[in-house]
């Protein structure tokens, strides 16, 4: 019989990795941290495992950000490696396009306030409004308002960047 945590792992692991990736912006690191989250869950056996794993993931990401300066050099080395590897792959062009898209989203997310960003990422990870409220400290009624603002700002920021990029491309040509 499948363990409850195993089911959660199979259904939520990818979401946890994505959630972490949007905070640490390093695929390997995001996977490592996600593994760490589930190993900890095995130890703690939380009552509400889905909300718990995202809460722990958010904490780990926060710790990660704190130590980012210390590991800056090391991180640079880490992030350089996959880039070099991907360049020799046959679908390199697609990857370049993906990277460009991602950079824009990353920059757009960076323009959001911390709270708006957290709520948006938790919603995208599949948490319910009450779960998001519990984790972010907001009232359940305020989650919709926050999400509405976050979505609007993300799209606005992204579209503004698109316009700027097109303008700079036109200026170059």
């Amino acid at each position, binding site marked *: 019989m499948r363990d409850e945590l195993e089911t959660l792992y199979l259904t939520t692991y990818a979401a946890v990795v*994505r959630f972490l990736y949007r905070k640490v912006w390093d695929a390997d690191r995001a996977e490592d941290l996600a593994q760490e989250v589930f190993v900890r869950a095995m130890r703690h056996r939380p009552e509400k495992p889905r909300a718990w794993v995202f809460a722990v993931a958010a904490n780990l990401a926060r710790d990660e950000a704190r130590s980012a300066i210390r590991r800056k050099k090391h991180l640079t080395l880490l992030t350089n490696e996959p880039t070099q590897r991907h360049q020799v792959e046959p679908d390199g062009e697609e990857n370049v396009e993906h990277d460009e898209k*991602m950079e824009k989203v990353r920059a757009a997310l960076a323009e959001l306030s911390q709270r708006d960003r957290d709520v948006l990422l938790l919603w*995208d990870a599949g948490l319910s409004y009450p779960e998001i409220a519990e984790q972010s400290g907001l009232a359940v009624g305020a989650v919709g308002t926050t999400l509405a603002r976050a*979505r609007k700002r993300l799209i606005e920021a992204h579209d503004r960047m698109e316009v700027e990029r097109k303008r700079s491309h036109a200026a170059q040509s």
Partner: protein
Amino acid sequence: MRHNPEPIRHIPEEELHAYLDQALSRSQCVEIEHHLAGCHVCRAERDGIAALRDRTTALLVAAAPRRIRPRPYAHLSAAHVERASRRTRLLRGAGWAASVVAAIGLGWGLNQWSTPGTATSGEPTAAVASTAGQPPETPIRTNTPTQVATLTAPSRPVAAPTRTEPSPAETATHEPPPPPRPATSELASLAGTSAASEPVLTGVWRTVAWSNTQAEQEEWVPRVDGVPVVQVKQRQAPEGGRPITLVTQILANGEMISTVEGPATEVAALLSQQPGQSASAELQDMEAAPRPLPAEGSRPAAPGSAPRTLAIFGSAPPDSLKAFMLRVK
């Protein structure tokens, strides 16, 4: 003439987000759907929000690793089991580490203690006190220093703060301590003697197991509390009774200190054999010192309880030996 329709309450934006996010109750949903059916403004708003929502999702999909390869759950379980056992080992290790830290802390404390700023460490010195026919129940007080020798040359052993307490009866009512007297004798013959820490013993001494010693002496062995005991030796007292006991202990800095307790004459003889005429010189002076001290309420020693002396000697400054004296158990 048509009546103006009642101003319609449009659905707030955040409610439409919640509606599309399926975060509303069934009855709320029914209410909203009913309104949407009759309000084109809110329908347009809903469509706009749905598009915004879809775009957000599409953007966030781009902000994800290209591939996510979950390791098999079994790997995770293995990591969990491994970590649990490591934690157990760590806990065991922590207990061990705590004891080491405690030992180091103790050693550090003693080291600090044994090297006061003004004293020169490494100088063999001796602290001497007399005890009566029974072990002291409380730390011996330092209120009767009869001799304090100062070192006249580096590396020369000196005798250290000494004091005499001939009988327990007298220890209770001593006057405030007289100021330490300056050295009465030049300690001349010890140049080159590195330490008096290793006691020189004559006569028949037997090495006694630590637990046996405690048992034989009713749990009391003269020693500095909290310092590891290296060796316990005993020799029969000539008059019988409690033997002369010598306890060697090792300080954190590796130096040895020895505590000797026994009949005054025996201890004096033992100290006189130590490398350092100092000890004997001091003891002779001590013998000459008024004993018992003229203290109020002093009573003659109980019959059969010959004066006994407790002495500490070793490579430590006089102040340290004095401090050790306070910690003699």
